[in-house]
């Protein structure tokens, strides 16, 4: 059976746990959030978290500079982070896997063309292009998702290409062709299912990357527009107050760090799991 070293086992478990909790929080955000994340109360600005002196149990994580409940904003922020992570990964996965499988399967000129696109894309500075696009088109949820989705497919393409090259020379591909299967059938039903495992690992890491990039864009003011409670935007809005109210950037910062760490731990664990599964 599949077995991980015990240390790895724990790390993977922790990662999976974090991802599961944040996912649940994201899904049930409206039910979990104690207050409306958009309602401002200027009389209750910058209240400290409940465990500090002067904190109040009404606002567990305090309030921000506009008096909005910070816990509620954090909970709704999880929604944005996860949604962006998943949607960006789906878009980039579709693009990357399609290109990679075509390049790996057909080789030759197709491969040359795809490799050219990949190297071109790799030479483009990610943040700079994302910033430019968002600045030109205007920032909105969809623009951020599309921009990142159109930029982050390279990893998928590279992995899909190499694994397809390995799979395409195996006998069962020839056997499928010999039994009269069409090219589309071979690609979708024979090749794709057999390259999925490494792609799942890539997907987890891409989710983490997309979340971090969204936070970065939002921090720079070109991501998710206010008043949406994106974690990156929360840090950006809080940075003016960080000297006197450091928790205002620490809370979303820690949330971001923990989530990305969790996803990466899970991705690493999955990779080892599939890796040992492969060699057996």
């Amino acid at each position: 059976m599949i077995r991980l070293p015990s240390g790895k086992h724990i790390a993977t478990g922790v990662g999976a746990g974090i991802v599961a909790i944040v996912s649940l929080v994201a899904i049930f955000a409206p039910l979990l959030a104690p207050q409306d994340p958009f309602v401002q109360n200027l009389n209750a600005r910058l209240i400290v978290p409940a465990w500090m002196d002067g904190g109040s149990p009404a606002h567990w994580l305090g309030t921000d500079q506009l008096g909005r409940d910070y816990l509620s904003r954090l909970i709704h922020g999880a929604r944005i982070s996860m949604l962006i992570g998943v949607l960006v990964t789906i878009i980039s996965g579709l693009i990357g896997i399609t290109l990679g499988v075509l390049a790996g399967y057909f080789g030759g000129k197709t491969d040359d063309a795809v490799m050219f696109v990949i190297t071109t894309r790799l030479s483009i500075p990610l943040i700079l292009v994302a910033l430019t696009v968002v600045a030109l088109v205007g920032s909105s949820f969809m623009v951020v998702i599309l921009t990142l989705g159109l930029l982050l497919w390279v990893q998928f393409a590279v992995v899909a290409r190499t694994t397809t090259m390995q799979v395409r020379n195996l006998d069962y591909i020839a056997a499928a062709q010999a039994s009269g299967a069409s090219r589309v059938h071979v690609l979708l039903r024979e090749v794709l299912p057999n390259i999925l495992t490494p792609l799942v690992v890539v997907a987890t890491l891409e989710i983490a990357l997309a979340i971090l990039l969204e936070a970065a864009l939002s921090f720079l003011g070109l991501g998710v527009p206010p008043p949406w409670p994106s974690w990156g935007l929360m840090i950006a809005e809080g940075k003016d107050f960080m000297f006197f109210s450091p928790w205002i950037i620490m809370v979303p910062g820690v949330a971001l760090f923990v989530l990305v760490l969790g996803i990466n731990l899970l991705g690493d664990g999955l990779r080892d799991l599939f890796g040992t599964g492969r060699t057996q």
Partner: protein
Amino acid sequence: MSTPILDRPVLDIADLRVDFGTVAAVRGVSLHIARGETHCLVGESGCGKSVTALAVMGLLARNGRLQARHIRFQDHDLLGLKESGLARLRGDKMAMIFQEPMTSLNPAYTVGSQMAEVLRHHRGLKRTAALDRAAELLSRVGITAPGLRLGQFPHQLSGGLRQRVMIAMALLCDPELLIADEPTTALDVTVQAQILRLLQQLQRDLGLALLLITHDLGIVARMAHQVSVMYAGEVVETGKVAEVFGNPTHPYTRGLLECIPIPGKVKRGDRLGSIPGVVPRIQAGFTGCGFRDRCAHATVACTATIPLQQAESGHRYLCRLDPAWTRQAA
């Protein structure tokens, strides 16, 4: 079923040539197989046996260039068919099984769904009907508990079982022609014998034309009606098995036969026969005998184009030298 036309072969290849870049992999192979006949292609690795088979199926790698006077399969001219037409024949009227049963089944699907897929593709059967037919064929190839096997994944089956599954899969649509590319090379000896017996029996029962590729002369002696010995992309000797083995005329055929240790005949301590050197890569534009560099009898005459010679009726070989002389010299 229509009455079989006995004088018209199921598969008729004339002067097949396949090039990969500047390398000539197959150089003018002609062969035909009748209904109910087993034709064996023998030779070392790299002689163009598999390429010949893949050319018939239309499954050559993209850089392969195919030429022939004709390749006829039943009433179809395979050279004139488009890819879609070939795909319709593949797995339906002509089927192929491969050497490596460990990798020729897709690990992502159960045996049942792989088999059902073929039937749905060619026959448009519903899943349950297709599974029934698949189970029927699994028991046909000697698999007990076919219902259980249909639900299993390839990694749960042994090599012999997988090869049986592959054979059953090839037979799903009642093919006329079965190409088996070293079907038993990867199996251990006892399983090998079972699989060969199965193939023989199926062929007799179904009247298949069987093109069997192997490098094992024992298998040829046991299975084949006709044999073609291939060397460096050419058929160097062809004929009925009894004639070719009883009266090997080409030095290469004789060399191959001498490589087999025969219990009782070869004494302990004797040197086993071998043919020095390896199969050369033949470049386009090569003339003469491809075997001349490894042949003990080669003369200057061997660099000229070799005409096809007749030993007995239907037993032909590709060598300029006098067989009586080469036999003595060896």
